[in-house]
């Protein structure tokens, strides 16, 4: 049945004489296999050598801190709403006096959990975050023996102050340029206050 003028019959089931004596085809196949013997190996020896992930790879999450070391997350719940696998839960807390160096805003995530067994690493939480707080990274979630161990709390998710996770390659050039603008950062007044305080102390 022909519906268009673009069709072309591609399968020819008639064997020619050369094809009927199948030895040439066998030799040809053998030749191809042998020629691959002398080519560069494409496999990598995994545990010793690791494949390089793309900078935008969607692996284990990180909760970012700002340049002063305070947690960025304000527990707005957007990541939990955006999550199609319903893997994220959180509880909010209110920042008390004297905790300004710990939490960036007045509200923060007192408890933040991602169930890595539910998570499908779609990256929608990262896209939903309005505070640059949650990012996926190119790290792979390690295996565990117990189901409970896959529920990652803040202890595993928040980056360490002295061991930051670089996510600048995931961000668009526009965002990076924006972040360099003086006076256009989040809570710029608050950051200024902090710096002036520390200056006056010293």
């Amino acid at each position, binding site marked *: *049945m022909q519906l268009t003028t673009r*069709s072309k019959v591609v399968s020819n089931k008639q064997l020619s004489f050369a094809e009927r004596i199948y030895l040439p085809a066998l030799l040809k196949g053998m030749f191809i296999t042998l020629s691959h013997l002398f080519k560069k190996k494409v496999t990598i020896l995994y545990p010793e050598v690791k494949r390089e992930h793309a900078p935008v790879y969607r692996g284990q999450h990180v909760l970012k801190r700002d340049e002063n070391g305070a947690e960025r997350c304000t527990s707005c719940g957007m990541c939990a709403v955006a999550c199609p696998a319903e893997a994220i839960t959180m509880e909010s807390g209110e920042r008390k006096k004297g905790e300004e160096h710990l939490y960036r805003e007045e509200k923060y995530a007192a408890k933040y959990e991602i169930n890595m067994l539910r998570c499908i690493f*779609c990256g*929608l939480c990262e896209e*939903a975050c*309005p505070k640059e707080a949650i990012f996926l990274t190119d790290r792979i979630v390690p295996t565990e023996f117990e189901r409970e161990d896959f529920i990652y709390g803040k202890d595993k998710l928040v980056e360490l102050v002295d061991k930051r996770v670089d996510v600048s390659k995931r961000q668009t050039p526009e965002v990076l340029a924006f972040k360099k603008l003086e006076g256009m950062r989040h809570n710029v007044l608050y950051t200024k206050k902090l710096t002036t305080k520390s200056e006056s102390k010293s």
Partner: protein
Amino acid sequence: MSKKSSHIIPPSINSIEKEYSTLNLGPTHPATHGIFQNVLQMDGEIIHDAIPTIGYIHRAFEKLAERRPYAQITPLTDRLNYCSAPINNMGWHMTVEKLIKAEIPKRAEYMRVIIMELARIADHIICNTIIGQDTGATTGFLYLFQYREKIYDIFESICGARLTTNICRIGGFDKEWGKVTWDRIHQFVADFPKALDEFNNLLERNRIFMDRTINCGPITAEKALEYSFTGPNLRAAGVDYDVRVATPYSSYSDFEFIIPVGTSGDTYDRFMVRNEEMKQSLSIIKQALKNMPDGKTHADLPDFFLPPKEKVYSEMEALIYHFKIVMGETDIPKGEVYHSVEGGNGELGFYLISDGGRTPYRLHFRRPCFIYYQAYPEMIKGTMLSDAIITMSSMNVIAGELDA
């Protein structure tokens, strides 16, 4: 019955009675490439009857989709035909775009075409090399699979994932592709024909392979149409139906390509049709790269496309829209649409009814493999068991599309 006689088989009138033996092919059989169960009635080596079981992977996607905002349904479509996830993603995006009547810029459409054709090549690589694998030729499988990895590298550099891509957004691409991506695509287009030729040298005109696959699991065009086959399996039967030509979407009318058809719908035809389709896909990618228009990579859709992050961080208006879109609180028109794309295995359709709420009222996926699998018992009746294995792998039935 007395205790003594229960141990004695009563002699029948015809002492050599014909009996069929029952064989469970699957659910987890290494040769079926997925969770398929077929309860076969075997007459020796010949299949007398087959009863397929559908529903081993039932994930209730259509029901799940009724409780998800539109953007969150994309990761569900990833898992339909997971061998060519980007086609599913983009089919879904185009369905929503049809509902909200969005105009997509040419550049975004061309970029989508490139991704969809790469995904088609990856899908066909899996199917064709596995036919080789099932007929006992592992060589081609090993060599051509390297190129599937390269396609996945391209996907990874665009969206960050290899298999379940969640690529693209409603309205277009979220960001411009980097230089690495373009380089990799150009490299792939340059390298792949050589590898494909090598693969064809191994199998295409090899008499052993031809003897094995010709007249194995055939289906006539009439029967295929009755079962509503689409895609390569219908084209192998000789009907040149291709959604890309019949109802062009995403600028497919701009590209020149031929529709390969077979003659009798057997395994060899399916193999050859897929082989030629890979070449055609490659030529489409080349045309798209050559004529790539300039412009924006996404449509101007403030109600659906997330505003750029730097604006979200600084402007009130953008932040409000950001919250509204993520929570799925933007207005969506009422109505029902059907949109279909040419998936790796055939017409992948999305039937969407919207009642104006934040989630679809009803969403139905037209899964091509679900249809093939229903024709499968009829195709394998009267054939040998080993032919049944090749027939299934040549139809490329993906278990992810069977959960209806």
